[in-house]
């Protein structure tokens, strides 16, 4: 049973040894060391009748594997002498392929990790519908209690949904005002604006809060500012559909002001010291109110411009007029010349 297999195996090993370079020394030892190789060959006999081919094939494969390792190892130390031009090319392509593979793998694993780590976010989405409703209502009611820190729910469902609602409203506003954005889509702009404001201003205020030594965490800040956007949503939804300036200003001061006041009251209750309170709340109130003003007028003014042009009486396009004038004058000239001739 083991006779031909062993012989073939030995032959295979010998041929392997003949072509092996110095780097394979350890591997050769491994193969020939002790009786382990013999046992492998015995097992080999069970596989198939032609164990010789198997051994050869196996050696081929192992040689290739070893080559890859050896090349990778040698690449660092002895570039020039180990590799010919052909080898260099092969290695270059292999390196490029390896890098591509690595980059792809990294990205895939990142996406997978993100999806796998979804459980980390789950506590922030642990809410009931009536809780969300109450928080939405509370975001419009400023509480005058500044001696004791007010509660802020560290929850992200409501803010996230409000931001998406704001995106939808903004998209609506952009469409009705015929905003044309070069080098980008309306969708991207709306999402960028809303998420940029939410995350950017939250981080900025959190940084200020850190400097002013107020007690608030990043999640609480995100939640506070997110629910503060409820007022923006109402205001913009109404004023994008009813184009009245006075109505907008009433909403801006009334609803926008209420939600801003609520945030300011919470922040004041969690900060100590007049200057710190002034800096923090001033910054937040200014940014929040100006953002509403910006969102309204950035995608509203265009409508008025278009309405103006529609209301004006039909004026022929400028080019046409310019082209007609010489024609008329030449006709007049023709008439005059004819008259003169006559």
């Amino acid at each position, binding site marked *: 049973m083991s006779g031909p297999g062993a012989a073939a195996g030995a032959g295979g090993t010998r041929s392997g040894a003949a072509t092996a370079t110095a780097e394979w020394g350890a591997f050769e030892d491994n193969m020939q060391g002790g*009786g*382990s190789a013999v046992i492998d060959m015995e097992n080999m006999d*069970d596989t198939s009748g032609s164990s010789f081919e198997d051994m050869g094939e*196996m050696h081929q494969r*192992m040689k290739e*594997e070893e080559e890859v390792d050896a090349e990778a190892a040698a690449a660092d130390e002895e570039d020039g002498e180990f590799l010919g031009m052909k080898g260099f090319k092969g290695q270059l392509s292999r390196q490029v392929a390896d890098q591509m593979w690595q980059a792809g793998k990294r990205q895939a694993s990142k996406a997978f990790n993100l999806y796998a780590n979804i459980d980390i*976010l789950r506590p922030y989405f642990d*809410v009931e519908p009536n809780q969300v409703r109450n928080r939405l209502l509370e975001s419009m009611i400023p509480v005058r209690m500044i001696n004791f820190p007010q509660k802020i729910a560290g929850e992200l*469902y409501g803010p996230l*949904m409000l931001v998406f609602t704001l995106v939808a409203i903004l998209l609506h506003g952009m469409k009705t005002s015929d905003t044309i954005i070069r080098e980008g889509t309306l969708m991207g702009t709306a999402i960028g604006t809303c998420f940029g404001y939410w995350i950017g201003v939250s981080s900025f205020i959190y940084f200020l809060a850190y400097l002013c030594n107020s007690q608030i965490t990043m999640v609480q800040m995100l939640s506070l500012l997110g629910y503060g956007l409820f007022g923006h949503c109402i205001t913009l939804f109404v004023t994008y559909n009813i184009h009245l300036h006075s109505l907008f200003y009433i909403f801006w001061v009334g609803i926008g002001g209420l939600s801003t006041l609520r945030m300011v009251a919470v922040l004041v209750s969690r900060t100590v010291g007049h200057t710190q309170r002034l800096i923090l709340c001033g910054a937040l109130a200014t940014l929040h109110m100006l953002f509403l003003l910006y969102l309204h007028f950035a995608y509203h003014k265009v409508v008025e411009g278009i309405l103006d042009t529609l209301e004006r009486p039909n004026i022929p396009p400028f080019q046409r007029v310019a082209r007609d004038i010489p024609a008329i004058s030449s006709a007049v000239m023709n008439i005059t010349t004819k008259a003169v001739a006559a």
Partner: protein
Amino acid sequence: RISGFFTLSGRAVRVKYSTPAFAGLADVSISEDIPVEGEITVPVGPNSPDEDYSTLDEPVKETVMRDLKAVGKKFVHVMYPKKSSALLRDWDLWGPLILCVLLALMLQGGAADSTEDRGPQFAEVFVIIWFGAVVITLNSKLLGGTISFFQSLCVLGYCILPLTVALLVCRLILIANSGTAGFVVRLLVVVAMFGWSTLASTAFLADSQPPNRKALVVYPIFLFYFVISWMILTFTP
């Protein structure tokens, strides 16, 4: 490569496996007296006909037709939503892709050849649909839903079908009549189809959600279909 015999339910089965770390394994010595064999009990369940069915030597036409039939069956499920798990059990993304491309192409309208790019662009529709579906799915996962990612994507994608129908009808109406009467008809059609889409998708997805939080899951779905139907309503070629 190491091989051995294992007896599997009375029959000898040859098991063959190869390892790259052969050198390390070489040290493991197995004496010849002990045969490498044992009883492996594989839980053999009742074979379902799907698994036995070989698709290797069937004509290509049959393969394509089978897939198309599966997609068509799901379309019927959406148009006639009843509590059924067919849409959930074997999900595919072909239907959503077809619907999405159709919707985007029809909404593109005449915007492609005019220099002024009014109207929703192809990419915009595409992004809204897929991004929205992903957001809804993640939201439902975060709220504790027990549905896989692609199942949810599949359901949301297939439920755009009523809105695609609404867009087709709207375009036909726009050809016939683009006045106020036409607008009223379009509004009615779009609102009806919007309700249909929302109801169908909630019928499929509601079971996988915790009962007390259904409203929270339905809100983003509502918003998603609302944006799409609003785009359809405001579309004029």
